[in-house]
């Protein structure tokens, strides 16, 4: 019954949107800026300028010169003609997402870099977003919104987030990104465009198919009631993954520059995995972690993250799995001291108070100034008294 209502509703919505379809604007030439200051496009750009000012100084931005230079370099390699028009901002958000604003601002979220396997996949995403810029998809979408939706309400939802005290910049950013969710035709167009661009730049055209296959695998298991990042605006479907794979195979070989990409990302992986687990999207994170662990670059931070996932989820059998995974981590020379504290919690829950106390003590020896030192000492006393 519910499905029927959804199908009928979707059909009505589709007919309504088609009835309100707006002719797409002509592509943006290199160096494009709206010249008619009274146009809706100029107004939209003016809003984006304000957002960019906030982005530039926001602590949500990852302000690392090496990462920034790398993203700029890849972007210019994919789009040498638009190199001067694009400005990339890396935002610390664990969701897989990228977004293109009409004035050349491109947002890349750290959750995307965590999931991308090599430079060719990253280049494809940048090329895909470039398509939205070049084809002025944002403007077309904006005009559609103005004709079909309550613009004031839409903008207040998206922009209102800036007014709230604790709200991260990504709140407003993602609000605007949701405004610019494109239809499937524009997404297919952007996929084709991105693929052509990376092929021209000498990248491996089979990389995008692999990336979307991975995203589809995550999308299949994720809790649909929770926020999804890119899946809200860029549907990850098996059809999309296979279509990209087919198109890529037709184009022939190319370079993936995997080692260059992985070397750059390695120092950040631990922090980004911590952010990923902070969402508590266990099923999706487990698929991601198993994929990362299958890579030759898998390091102690990834194995530690898997132990953390088991400990946090604590479903049937998880605590035992967490214990054995912490054991593996702590056998490695680069093991973080915090793994002792986390293993202590697992041991306590599994009925091993002396083992838990020993681990807590080991942690405090490594980090005597730990902020939670007083609490841990109380826990040790409780464990040793039990």
């Amino acid at each position, binding site marked *: 019954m519910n499905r029927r209502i959804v199908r009928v509703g979707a059909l009505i919505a589709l007919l309504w949107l088609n009835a309100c379809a707006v002719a797409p604007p002509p592509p943006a030439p290199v160096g494009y800026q709206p010249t008619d200051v009274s146009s809706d496009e100029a107004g939209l750009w003016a809003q984006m300028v304000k957002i960019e000012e906030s982005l530039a100084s926001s*602590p949500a931005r990852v302000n690392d010169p090496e990462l920034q230079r790398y993203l700029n370099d890849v972007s210019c390699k994919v789009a040498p003609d638009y190199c001067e028009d694009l400005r990339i901002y890396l935002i610390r958000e664990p969701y897989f997402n990228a977004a293109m604003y009409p004035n050349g601002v491109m947002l890349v979220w750290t959750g995307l870099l965590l999931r991308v396997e090599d430079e060719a996949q990253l280049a494809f995403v940048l090329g895909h977003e470039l398509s939205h810029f070049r084809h002025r998809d944002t403007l077309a979408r904006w005009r559609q919104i103005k004709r079909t939706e309550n613009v004031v309400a839409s903008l207040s939802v998206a922009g209102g*987030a800036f007014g709230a*005290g604790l709200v991260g910049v990504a709140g407003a950013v993602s609000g605007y990104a949701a405004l610019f969710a494109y239809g499937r035709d524009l997404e297919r167009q952007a996929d084709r465009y991105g693929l052509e661009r990376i092929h021209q730049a000498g990248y491996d055209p089979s990389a995008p198919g692999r990336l979307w296959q991975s995203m589809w695998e995550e999308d299949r298991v994720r809790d649909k009631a929770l926020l999804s990042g890119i899946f809200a605006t860029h549907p990850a479907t098996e059809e999309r993954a296979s279509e990209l794979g087919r198109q890529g195979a037709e184009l022939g070989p190319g370079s993936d520059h995997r080692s260059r990409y992985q070397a750059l990302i390695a120092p950040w992986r631990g922090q980004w995995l911590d952010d990923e687990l902070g969402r508590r999207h266990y099923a999706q994170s487990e698929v991601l972690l198993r994929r990362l662990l299958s890579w030759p670059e898998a390091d102690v931070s990834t194995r530690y993250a898997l132990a953390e996932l088991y400990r946090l989820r604590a479903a049937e059998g998880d605590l035992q799995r967490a214990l054995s995974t912490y054991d593996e981590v702590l056998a490695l020379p680069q093991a973080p001291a915090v793994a002792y504290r986390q293993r202590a919690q697992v041991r306590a829950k599994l009925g091993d108070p002396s083992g838990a106390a020993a681990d807590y003590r080991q942690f405090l020896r490594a980090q005597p100034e730990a902020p939670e030192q007083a609490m841990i000492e109380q826990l040790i006393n409780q464990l040793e008294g039990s």
Partner: protein
Amino acid sequence: MMVLRWLPLIALFIAGCSSNGLVRPGSVQVDGLQLRPGTAWTQRGVKGERQWTIDGPQLNALEIYTGIKDGDFIFDLDQRNKRGEGLRYRASMNALELQELIVAGLREAGAIDPESIRLAPREVGDLPGFELELRFANAQGLHYRALGLGFVADQRLQFLLYYAPAEYYFERERREIESLFASLRWTKG
């Protein structure tokens, strides 16, 4: 859709609040808690998720979360009774795990780089609990400090979180908050 993530901390800014008004100095009952504010606060919110402020929530806010059951979202009243993944309180959690959950909840709510800088045991009346101190930034780069106090009563987590800009406002109300926390008692049940 994405903006839903920020509803927990802005929900109290919008319509639907059923208990707005002035909180006068003296003994006050809030959802099973007894508190003794030393100054006047403005209260808004609903049972289970209230917000007190003196100068406006961006300058100082005391969030009072009560009755968080096993499996409930920690900060998000709208999500509390739904089941699934996400930032949920578990009755088996110790103070270390609750600290993790609170920090993750702040990050999910849009706080940037939230970090716990102190966690210690603290009794609330005769109930064991914990206190913690945190810091984070908002989107504009304004640095905040926060004090939290939590305990479990009636098998439910009760949790107070005060936050204010680190410069001036946090320290200005610190004594009031510490006094307020010291006065906290569980009266329900």
